[in-house]
């Protein structure tokens, strides 16, 4: 009798769940808008595309997408999707900040999510990452792997966010080898700096000419050139945002993962299940929002000592024993 009750109960529950799900499918229209650089940048935008795709495959829900061509289209794209009843609308990129402020206020019943930027409105979820923590770990790996004691960093657009990557990286390098030297370059001061692989490659070459043998990039599409240059010279690159180890197997030491895909996936999923929460969320090492990638393409590059030291540091950062300075707290970096 008891068993029967449970079974019936479970069946009813299942039935209502599938019903709710089916209902959700009919008018659940999520949308994602990519930033300049396009959805196949192998990095930041691609991560958000993958998150949306994973959600779409798991729950069999179609999603709308748009690749902007210019800054002026940000507001148009947001408004266009909101007007057509798409909900939630997820955008990846700090540059959407002011467009989001305008449009989200116009559509208070639509849920929005923005990644890498904080927009303080009751229907907007702002997701930021502790990139400095992940960068700290790959910085340690770079310093331990380097034979010359010199490592490089190539940033995309020169903005506080990218300096935050650089600052975490330098702190990691110095933690593993206080005498190590770090060369830093930024690709440019405009959005074009996210998609300039040629210049990225040249900057990496310049750093390698000065003796760097591991180069980390935080430059979106520009980073393809950085990794290519490192591989061509037989040196090591470090990828960013997505797992880029596969791009040049054996020549990419690791990738600093920034789980933009998880942020997009969660925003879609929470909204579908009716659990969407607005507000400010920070994803760090503790939340698996950032991390480093080890797979079959780079496992031979990482020794057990390195692995142990990095895992140790990771645990200490999570527990608070190691404090990694966040550049954006005070717009300055204690290490250089």
């Amino acid at each position, binding site marked *: 009798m008891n068993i029967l009750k449970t079974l019936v109960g479970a069946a009813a529950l299942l039935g209502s769940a599938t019903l709710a799900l089916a209902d959700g499918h009919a008018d659940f229209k999520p949308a994602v808008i990519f930033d300049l650089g396009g959805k196949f940048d192998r990095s930041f935008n691609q991560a958000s595309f993958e998150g949306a795709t994973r959600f779409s495959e798991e729950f069999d829900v179609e999603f709308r997408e748009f*690749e902007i061509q210019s800054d*002026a289209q940000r507001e148009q794209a947001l408004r266009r999707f909101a007007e057509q009843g798409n909900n939630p609308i997820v955008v990846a990129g700090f*540059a959407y900040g*002011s467009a989001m402020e305008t449009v989200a206020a116009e559509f208070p019943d639509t849920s929005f999510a923005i990644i890498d930027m904080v927009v303080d409105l009751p229907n907007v979820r702002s997701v930021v990452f502790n990139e400095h923590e992940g960068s700290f770990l790959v910085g340690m790996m770079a310093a331990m792997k380097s034979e010359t004691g010199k490592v490089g960093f190539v940033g995309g657009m020169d903005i506080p*966010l990218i300096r935050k990557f650089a600052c975490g990286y330098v702190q990691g390098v110095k933690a593993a080898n206080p005498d190590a030297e770090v060369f830093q370059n930024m690709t440019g001061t405009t959005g074009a700096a996210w998609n300039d692989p040629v210049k990225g490659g040249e900057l990496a070459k310049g750093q390698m000419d000065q003796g760097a043998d591991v180069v980390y990039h935080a430059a979106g599409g520009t980073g393809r050139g950085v990794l290519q240059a490192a591989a061509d010279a037989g040196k090591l690159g470090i990828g960013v945002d997505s797992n880029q180890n596969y791009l040049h197997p054996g020549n990419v030491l690791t990738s600093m993962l920034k789980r933009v895909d998880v942020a997009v996936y969660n925003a879609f999923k929470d909204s579908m299940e009716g659990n969407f929460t607005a507000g400010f969320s920070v994803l760090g090492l503790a939340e698996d929002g950032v991390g480093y990638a080890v797979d079959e393409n780079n496992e031979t590059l990482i020794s057990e000592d390195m692995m142990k030291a990095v895992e140790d540091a990771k645990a200490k950062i999570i527990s608070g024993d190691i404090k990694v300075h966040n550049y954006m707290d005070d717009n300055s970096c204690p290490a250089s």
Partner: protein
Amino acid sequence: MKKSLPTWADVVLIPAINVFLAFFVAGLVVLFIGEDPIRAMGIMIQGSLGSSYGIGYTLFYATNFIFTGLAVAVAFHASIFNIGGEGQAGVAGVGVALVCLTVDQTHWLLALPLAIMGGAVFGAGWAAIPAWLQAKRGSHIVITTIMFNYIAAALIIYLLNNYLKVPGAMALETRGFAEGAQIPAMHEIASWFGASISRTPMNISFFLALLASFLVWLLIWRSRIGYEIRAFGFSEKAAVYAGIKPVKIIMIAMLLSGALAGLMAINTVMGSEKRLVLDSVLGAGFVGIAVALMGRSHPIGVILAALLFGVLYQGGAELAFEIPSIPSQMILTIQALVILFTGSLENMVRFPLEKLFLRLNRGTA
């Protein structure tokens, strides 16, 4: 000299055939990537003219193109090819932003005329250097104005990065203008009359563009200086013989041209973005060349051509929304085909048509 083509054929028939050809070839391109060209065309037209939302965006883009089209047209009447609309409008954006940032605590009725002056002065100023180099030194204006587009882009990046952007912020943009420098958007104007239309960036500067078109017509065809500009454009030697000073004409035509290009910043910087962003011109300076060519450098023609390009821009964006499998580069291709057919391949249609009309005339005579 007797015209080989009747005016209606020159003004209506040739552009119509050109547009038709362009859409035909664009349709073939769409067909090649496996999409339905009729559906794509329908989306473009429905998306740009089918709702108050679409019309608003179409007219917003058209406003930009009217200004830059007029700019090219005025210079063209003096036989000067001003390729620098992009840079002039960009620098004018800085002028408009500086005015707006200064007076945005007042009222838009005060801010608008000041911003118009700011945009016109900065735009004309940026055109003045190539104009002077052409007038005094004979440096070819096509080369110098193209170069000045790049200098303008670099200058704006420098100013935004070092002086104008909000300290500590990541986006390359100034702070938003306060209430006092926000000109009425079209949906606000409509609500004054009790009508309700969708929110779009279209704003009061659309009427400014129409007014500018009328003033350009007055200037070129109904004023003494306009006569001198046209005479100079027809034949420099004859104009000089008639006592027209080339330096003066080149300077006046180019300053007017730069000022007109600069006025589009009212539409984008002051009207739509309400702040100075990095790329506020969006290629409108170059589209203006095609608009002026297609519009035969006449204000009415410029307005019509600007509307067509507004439809292309807004329709193209709709196409990207509705059929994501059509890549954005393909939309650029479609827009480029229209420019190609209306701008440079015009004679392909004109010569056969002229022959046809000659034969017809001979038949009737």
